[in-house]
């Protein structure tokens, strides 16, 4: 009976995914992408993955959605807007369709075949049993009570550490690709009074709810990444409200905040190695405390990185400084 929910949800998700890619207008693609994210979050809920659902809501639909929306601003044509109906702004240029038909037919047929094999593979999958039992057995030694947090920050802490590095790396990549715009104060935009009210109201909520998610990560769904996005949202809001925090603090402090999570994690690991243990092998008595510190610092760092990614992208078009040729 409850399977009806799943079937409907699956159909809706597939429809949204296809429609999102087929629709000719960019703005609609982005909106359908939010809807797809919501559908996916419902699917995670149905599969009992609340942590994943919160992450999806926070970072994949929320943060990425904001980035996509911001990109729409950039892709709006800068000339000849007034002649056209606004509807057509995001319409893609039409090109010769005929030359594309044959390769596309071949591609679609190939994909259909691939889909068939994939479905067979997924349907016939043997039951491997998973690692639930071993995770459950070792959970008491991990320092936390929530199994997903235990895996993320203790059993597979190495992956999580690298992942914090990946976010920092993403920020560096954005710097390289778009120029470092972060430290410049944005152009004189008069702050919107209504926006300021909203920010005043929402910021404490974001902060408190983020802290709440971080805190309950020890015992239930929630944790550093989800909290980080909510805290990052504060930075984004402040940026939108004309208060770019990273342009206002000294640079070394910004770098410190940015690298704090990764650095503390790593230095702790090295100290543990010096102590004759292995990387990230916490002493059992302190495991809970260390995980909490790592999560807090990590969340702040990730929040800073996400804010910086957004702020840098948001200011990308502020001034066009041509890059001089090098090679």
């Amino acid at each position, binding site marked *: 009976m409850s399977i009806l929910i799943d079937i409907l949800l699956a159909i809706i*998700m597939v429809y949204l995914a296809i429609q999102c890619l087929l629709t000719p207008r960019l703005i609609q693609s982005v909106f359908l992408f939010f809807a797809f994210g919501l559908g996916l979050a419902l699917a995670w809920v149905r599969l009992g993955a609340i942590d994943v659902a919160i992450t999806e809501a926070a970072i994949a639909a929320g943060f990425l959605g904001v980035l996509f929306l911001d990109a729409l601003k950039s892709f709006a044509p800068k000339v000849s807007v007034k002649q056209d109906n606004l509807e057509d702004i995001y319409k893609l240029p039409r090109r010769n369709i005929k030359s594309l038909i044959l390769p596309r037919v071949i591609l679609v047929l190939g994909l259909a075949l691939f889909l068939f094999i994939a479905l067979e593979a997924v349907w016939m999958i043997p039951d491997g049993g998973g690692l639930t039992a071993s995770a459950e057995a070792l959970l008491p030694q991990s320092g936390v009570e929530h199994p997903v947090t235990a*895996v993320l920050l203790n059993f597979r802490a190495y992956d999580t550490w690298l992942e914090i590095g990946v976010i920092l790396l993403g920020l560096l990549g954005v710097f390289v690709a778009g120029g470092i715009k972060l430290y410049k104060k944005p152009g004189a935009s008069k702050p919107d009074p209504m926006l300021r009210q909203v920010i005043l109201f929402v910021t404490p909520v974001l902060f408190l709810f983020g802290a709440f998610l971080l805190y309950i990560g020890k015992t239930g769904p929630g944790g550093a990444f989800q909290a980080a996005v909510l805290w990052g949202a504060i930075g984004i809001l402040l940026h939108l409200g004309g208060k770019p925090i990273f342009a206002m603090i000294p640079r070394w402090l910004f770098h410190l905040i940015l690298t704090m999570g990764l650095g503390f994690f790593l230095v702790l690991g090295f100290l543990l190695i010096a102590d004759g243990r292995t990387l990230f092998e916490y002493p059992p008595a302190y495991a809970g405390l260390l995980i909490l510190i790592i999560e807090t610092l990590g969340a702040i760092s990730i929040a800073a990185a996400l804010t910086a990614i957004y702020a840098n992208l948001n200011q990308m078009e502020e001034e066009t400084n041509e890059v001089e040729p090098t090679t």
Partner: protein
Amino acid sequence: METYQIYSLTSAILFIIGIGGIFMARHFIKKIIATVIMGGGVFLSFVSFAQRDAITFADPVPHALVITGIVVAVASAALALALARRIYQLTGEETFTNDK
């Protein structure tokens, strides 16, 4: 048919839709969205198997992997967006058709 099977089949479909989108969509943004959809399919398959392997709770390892994976995918998508916007800013191109 069990719940997890519906979602694992859906995951394969989303995966293929994503691949198709990456090849067939022309606009940069749509290609990037397609990679995210493809990733969604992959993560869905992880989590669907986790639900199958549930005992007292669902298998936490795939959940953790998926959280890591989502964050990594978002970081790559952000970089891709930065590149796409920079290209548009410098050349006005929004597809690969005229690059060289």
